[in-house]
């Protein structure tokens, strides 16, 4: 397989590019493993990588019903940030951001992490006050945040409407300079390759159809490629979290919702940071291919369909045009939908379950991509040590029953509003 390096590139150039090997093996499942991770997306693969690298667990498998990175890992708008206010969230997401900063080196795979800055716009004095509060909370937690004036925002994002006719005049914004974007597929592929090199079996086209539980303890899983035994099973399946948990008799505080994202036709470089609208739900960045990548609200109703409806496309584009009028000249190249496992407080669940040996990593709402390395890091710790790390202690499943919810937005127990 070999290390990717400038030398391998040069050598490949001189040998007709014949040096490329497949990036990870395609093994058949063994009858038993020390641990199984269900879900071959970014989170599952990251978990496997850190389990093997940091906790010495190499006799493990990642089971993926389709292909690696074929779910939400390959369907998101690739934004990475850690601009959270609540204590239980902030340190976790900051850990994740710190892992992003060294990820390409760590994986020996270019995930194209670009710290181009994430700028949240404010459109009222009250919103500026709110951002000052959030920015201060972030800085007290050692996370970078800068409150920008209207003129500073203009320098960062001149394509926004600063005219007299702006529907929602821009008052300023909150900037996280270390935030940015990454190449989502490369994150899945990089973790897959790195985990495979440490001995992890990545088994694709292997759907889990049952979870074996004996006297409150997990003993293995049933799959489309036969039964596999394991004393530890971690679920990292995003949209179908509740379906998997049901196989072990668990009912979760999660509804699956539908989120759409869109890409425009490619442009020359136009916007060099991530901008989010503060008067509606709209976020935009530009991919390295030139397409404008943007999204907005959930469609609002439970769905597993992986496709959206046009009223929400129109609504999101209206938000975009209100913020950046020149968008209206562009054509939409494509749009798609994904299944979001929305929790009751808008924060994810990473931790133990009432079933011994069964661990849950889910409920990412629509913010899972940025958490990929951090999620894998704490989930690997949780699975290996059978207890949560202090970074994910507040993200436990039982927090809802204890009344210790982490509701960053203050929207209450209505999943579609987070």
């Amino acid at each position: 397989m070999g290390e990717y390096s400038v030398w391998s590139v040069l050598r490949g150039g001189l040998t007709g590019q014949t040096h490329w090997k497949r990036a990870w093996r395609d093994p058949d499942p063994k009858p038993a493993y020390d641990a199984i991770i269900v879900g071959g997306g970014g989170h599952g693969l990251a978990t496997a990588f850190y389990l093997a690298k940091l906790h010495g667990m190499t006799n493990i498998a990642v089971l993926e019903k389709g292909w690696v990175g074929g779910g939400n890992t390959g369907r998101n708008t690739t934004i990475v940030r850690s601009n959270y206010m609540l204590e239980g969230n902030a340190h976790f997401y900051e850990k994740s951001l710190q892992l992003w900063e060294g990820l390409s080196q760590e994986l020996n795979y270019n995930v194209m992490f670009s710290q181009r800055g994430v700028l949240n716009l404010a459109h009222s004095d009250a919103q500026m006050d709110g951002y000052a509060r959030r920015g201060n909370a972030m800085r007290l937690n050692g996370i970078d945040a800068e409150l920008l004036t209207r003129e500073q925002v203009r320098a960062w994002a001149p394509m926004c409407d600063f005219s007299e006719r702006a529907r929602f005049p821009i008052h300023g914004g909150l900037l996280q300079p270390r935030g940015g974007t990454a190449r989502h597929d490369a994150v899945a592929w990089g973790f897959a390759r790195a985990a495979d090199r440490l001995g992890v079996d990545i088994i694709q086209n292997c759907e889990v159809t049952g979870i074996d539980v004996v006297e409150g303890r997990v003993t293995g899983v049933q799959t489309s490629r036969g039964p596999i035994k394991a004393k530890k099973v971690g679920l990292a399946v995003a949209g179908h979290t509740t379906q998997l948990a049901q196989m072990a008799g668990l009912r979760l505080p999660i509804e699956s919702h539908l989120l759409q994202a869109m890409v425009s036709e490619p442009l020359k470089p136009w916007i060099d940071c991530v901008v989010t609208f503060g008067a509606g739900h709209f976020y935009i960045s530009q991919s390295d291919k030139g397409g404008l990548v943007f999204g907005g609200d959930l469609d609002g109703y439970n769905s597993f369909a992986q496709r959206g409806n046009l009223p929400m496309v129109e609504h999101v584009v209206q938000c975009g045009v209100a913020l950046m009028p020149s968008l209206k000249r562009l054509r939409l190249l494509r749009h798609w939908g994904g299944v979001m496992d929305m929790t009751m407080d808008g924060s994810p669940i990473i931790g133990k379950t009432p079933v011994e040996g069964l661990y849950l990593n889910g409920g990412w709402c629509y913010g899972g991509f940025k958490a990929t390395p951090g999620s894998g890091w704490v989930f690997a710790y949780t699975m290996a040590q059978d207890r949560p790390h202090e970074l994910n202690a507040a993200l436990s499943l039982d927090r809802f029953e204890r009344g210790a919810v982490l509701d960053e937005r203050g929207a209450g127990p209505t999943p579609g509003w987070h």
Partner: protein
Amino acid sequence: MLRIDCPWCGPRDMVEFTYVGDGTLRRPEIGAEDGHFDYVYLRDNPKGPHVEIWRHGVGCRRHVAVTRDTATHEMLATGKPGEGAS
């Protein structure tokens, strides 16, 4: 565009409605010790037919019980809350 057959107004576009949520939940009796956590937080979240409540905010402003397939978005039945569809 989804269309919902409002039992009071007839078929209307979904944009006239607001999604309320799972229509199978039953609020525990006032004063009950148990059941509140399940009612507020836990959901079956089925992939397939889902009984849910929509509010016809830009129409009759009443609640409508809808059975909809969450895997296909097909509208299977609509009715008044507490009758038929729910």
